[in-house]
Structure formats: C-alpha cells, structure tokens
C-alpha cells in the first residue's frame, strides 16, 4: 500500500533505496548528506530485505565497493556531498567504462575545495559533463521535491540497469534537509541477479565474463567508445524529462533545476501577479538535457533567465539548445547562499525585460 509520511529529503531517499530492492549501500558521512547513511543504519535494512549497509573507510573505498557489487549484477548505490563526490570520480569513470549499473547521489554543497556545508548547485559540470576522465556520461536526475527524491531512486535503478550505466541523483542541501509530504511506493523484492555480463561464477558451458575498463589496443578502446556513444544517443532519444509551467502564453522564460526551480517558481508567481507573462521550464534530467524543448520555446519567448545556485553552468547547455534564437542571461548566488524570489524577479526585470 502507498504510504503518506512527512520526511526529510535525505531520509526519504534512503527509505526509497530500501523499498526499491537495493542490494547494497556503501558510503561515508558528510554534511549535508549524512542522514542517508544514518537512516539506513538506524533502520537495519539487513533485517527487512537483506540489504547490506556499510560505512566504508573512505569515499574512495565506498565507490570501489559499489564497482565490485555492480560487477556481480547487484543493485548497489553510494551517496555523498560535493568534496566526497570529487574523491569518487575515478571509480565512477571506471564504472562507466566497464558499463555497469549503479546509483550515485550527490547532495551538493558550496565549493570549490571543502567549501561550505550550505546548499549549492555548483557540481552541475561535474555531474553532467563527466567529472572523471574519459568520454563518458552519467544519466543525471535533478529532484526538486522530497517526492521526486523518492521517485528518482526507483527510476534511477531502472535506468541504470536498462542502459548498464551509472545514474546520478543530483540533490542539494535544501532538498536533502527539508521535510515535505511524501508518498512511498511499496516494498519491491530484491532480485537475484541473472545477467550475462555479471561475474556470478563461471558455469561449465558458459564463456568467461570479464569486467574491465582497460583496453590496451586503441582499436578495441575505440569500439568501446563507439558503443558508449551509441548508448548515449539512445538515452538522449528516450529518457528526457522536464516540466513546463505557464509556458503556453509566456513572453519570457525562467529556467532552473532542483531546489532553485522551487524558489524560481515563487518568483514566477510574483511576476504573474504583476502581469508579467513568464513561464518556467524545469529540466528534471540534466543529462539527457531537454534540448528540443528549449529550442522550441526559444522561437516564441523574448528572453530566458537561467537561475542557478552557481556562477553559470546549466546556462551553457541552455545556450547550446537555444542556439542564438533568443537571449539567455544568468542569475546566480553561490557559495551556499540561496537566492530569494525578490532578487530573481528583479533580475528578470533588469536583465531580460529591461535589458
């Protein structure tokens, strides 16, 4: 039965992992993400579903445990916040190169460096453009509500196994720490892995399964790259998610993702109350990016304001999508500062309408 609760984003995400039938969670505490591992430890999922929860000795150990579990066809995940996610990048690149499924969660905080513990969206480039080395892509989901934090765990595991590709949920300090009403999906069973790519012990009549991200021959590596690229084109074709609010009659457009989209929505309501016809296009998948949606709406709006809690990262993808058809400006606060609706509305008036 579906169940209504009031939960913190991080806790709801952890509960969703148990209910999605995850086999293993490996992590290391860091603010503002620690509630994920706290909740999992306190709830003893080993008694509920047999799910393994382990606090690793470091972020690097955690991601490599995920790599190992994923190689056995297990539903494995890890979570961290920005500095911890940087440490995991080598492992993520290996997992992407070895084409294994897993779920990653980044509850983003301000940077660079150890930065601050307050909310930020400054890891967009890291998540979307490949934070590790090599030509790879993560599927990146950006929840704007606690409900989406739950739903994207389920969706994330589905996509990870559908494409044998790591999936990243990019949350932030606001979504992770806030409490909202949430409807939890029913407990799903854990599944005994039965995949021809997984290393589950070689049977007599089976060829060996070999998981690696190393190809010494360039010809072989290029084949891997071509296969990855073909997979990414499929993902771009099938998995784009976005939300359009008040876009039908819009003369101007806001765009924002995650928690920033919530604040921007408030600015949109204030603008509408003043008679400014502005809509909001919120990418729910940051990769694959809703390129077509932006291209279409660019034909009819007079300008787009991209609101982010960073110095301007998603705006690059917006500009590529719009391809010069309309002007695109950026408004951002960073370092853990959260923009308020008044300043967002003011930026629309100054940079787009009056600019």
């Amino acid at each position, binding site marked *: 039965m579906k169940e209504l609760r009031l939960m913190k984003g991080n806790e709801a995400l952890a509960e969703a992992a148990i209910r999605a039938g995850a086999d293993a969670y490996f992590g290391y505490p860091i*603010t503002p993400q620690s509630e994920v591992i706290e909740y999992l430890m306190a709830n003893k999922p080993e008694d509920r579903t047999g799910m393994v929860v382990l606090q690793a000795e470091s972020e690097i150990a955690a991601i490599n445990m995920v790599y190992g579990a994923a190689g056995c066809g297990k539903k494995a995940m890890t979570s961290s916040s920005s500095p911890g996610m940087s440490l995991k990048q080598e492992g993520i690149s290996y997992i992407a190169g070895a084409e294994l499924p897993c779920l990653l969660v980044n509850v983003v905080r301000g940077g660079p460096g150890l930065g*601050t513990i307050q909310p930020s969206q400054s890891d967009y480039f890291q998540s979307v453009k490949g934070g590790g080395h090599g030509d790879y892509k993560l599927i990146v989901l950006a929840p704007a509500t606690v409900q989406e934090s739950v739903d994207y765990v389920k969706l994330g595991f589905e996509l990870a196994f559908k494409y044998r590709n790591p999936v990243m949920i990019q949350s932030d300090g606001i979504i992770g720490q806030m409490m909202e009403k949430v409807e939890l999906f029913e407990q799903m069973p854990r599944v005994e892995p039965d995949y021809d790519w997984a290393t589950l012990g070689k049977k007599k009549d089976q060829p060996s399964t070999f998981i690696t991200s190393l190809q010494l021959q360039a010809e072989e590596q290029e084949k891997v790259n071509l296969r990855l690229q073909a997979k990414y084109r499929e993902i771009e074709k099938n998995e784009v998610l976005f939300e359009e609010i008040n876009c039908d009659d819009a003369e101007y457009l806001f765009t924002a993702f995650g928690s920033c989209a*919530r604040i921007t929505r408030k600015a949109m309501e204030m603008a509408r109350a003043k008679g400014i016809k502005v809509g909001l296009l919120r990418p729910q998948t940051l990769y694959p990016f809703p390129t077509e949606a932006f291209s279409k709406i660019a034909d009819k709006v007079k300008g787009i304001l991209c609101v982010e809690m960073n110095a301007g990262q998603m705006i690059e993808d917006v500009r590529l999508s719009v391809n010069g058809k309309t002007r695109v400006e950026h408004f951002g606060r960073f370092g853990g500062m959260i923009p308020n609706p008044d300043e967002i509305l003011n930026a629309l008036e100054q940079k787009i309408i009056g600019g």
Partner: protein
Amino acid sequence: MTEEIIIAGFGGQGVLSMGQILCYSGVMQEKEVSWMPSYGPEMRGGTANCTAIISDDQISSPVLNTFDTAIVLNQPSMDKFEDAVKPGGLLIYESNGMIRKPKRKDINICVINAYDESVKMNNTKVFNMIVIGGFLKIKPIIDMENVIKGLQKVLPERYHHLIPLNEDAIRKGMEIITVEHQLN
C-alpha cells in the same frame, strides 16, 4: 490559506521540533506543508531556526526571506527576524531574557512568557508546546485534534503517554499569550 512561519531561538528550546509539529499537524488537516531547518554553522553555535509553510496550495519555495509570522525566542533571533515579518504580519516573542522590545509599528505583536509558565508546570521541556499554543490562539489555522494527531506522528510510541501533558501546555499557551500591539 498560506501561512509562512519562521521560528528562531537557542538550540535546545525545541525550535526545530515546533516547526515539525506544526507541519505534521498540517498534514493531518490535509494541508500542503514544508519544513526547512537551518543546518549550517549557526546550528553549531547555539542559535537555530526553521521555516515552516502550511498552505492549501502547492508550496513553491521552501526558503523565504519574508514571513507572515515570526516566532522569536531569544534576542539574537528578534534582531535577525523582526524586519523579516511582512507588513501586517505577526511577531510573537518570548519575554524571558528579551532585553530590547520590538520596534515595528506596522505589524501585530504578541508576547508570551512561556519559560516561566513551563517552570510553573514543573517541566521546562514543554516550553515549545506553550509557544505553539500561543501561536494557534492568535492564528487558529490548525484544529486541536489535528495537533494531537500530529504529536502522535512526531513522538515515538514510548513517549505517547506524554501527549496529555503537551496538550495541557498548548492550552496554557493559548491562555497566557497577550497582544502587545495590534493593527486596526
């Protein structure tokens, strides 16, 4: 109806749980709710605050800079949030330990001496429930029965025997809150 509330005070006064109780109660009354705590360095330094929003409609931003109601329980919180009350809004303050009274004339101001009352009740832990009572007297946005249901959700079962005590504290708060400045 949308009520945007900031609750601020010292760590240990029950600031975060007040917000949670209001939100849980709101859920029981089939409202949309959101609760956002301060979790930054201020949490490590003694002062705490949370934003609670209770609404009939979908809630857009969980983070705000102006509020319908500010409940301030110490002087630093008064200094920080008095100006964040919307004109025509409500400021509720705890009188104990407050050196400077609020200056605004364009808002409604209520005062409650919840700390002394909690001492009288021999249980300073119900301090925050007395304050909630005071707030619900001035803004009866949630019915008492739903507050009790909310408490049942927030409190682990082993503390459910304390719910009658909390209910008494809420009713006490409703009795003792006084209006200091009222707009026409």
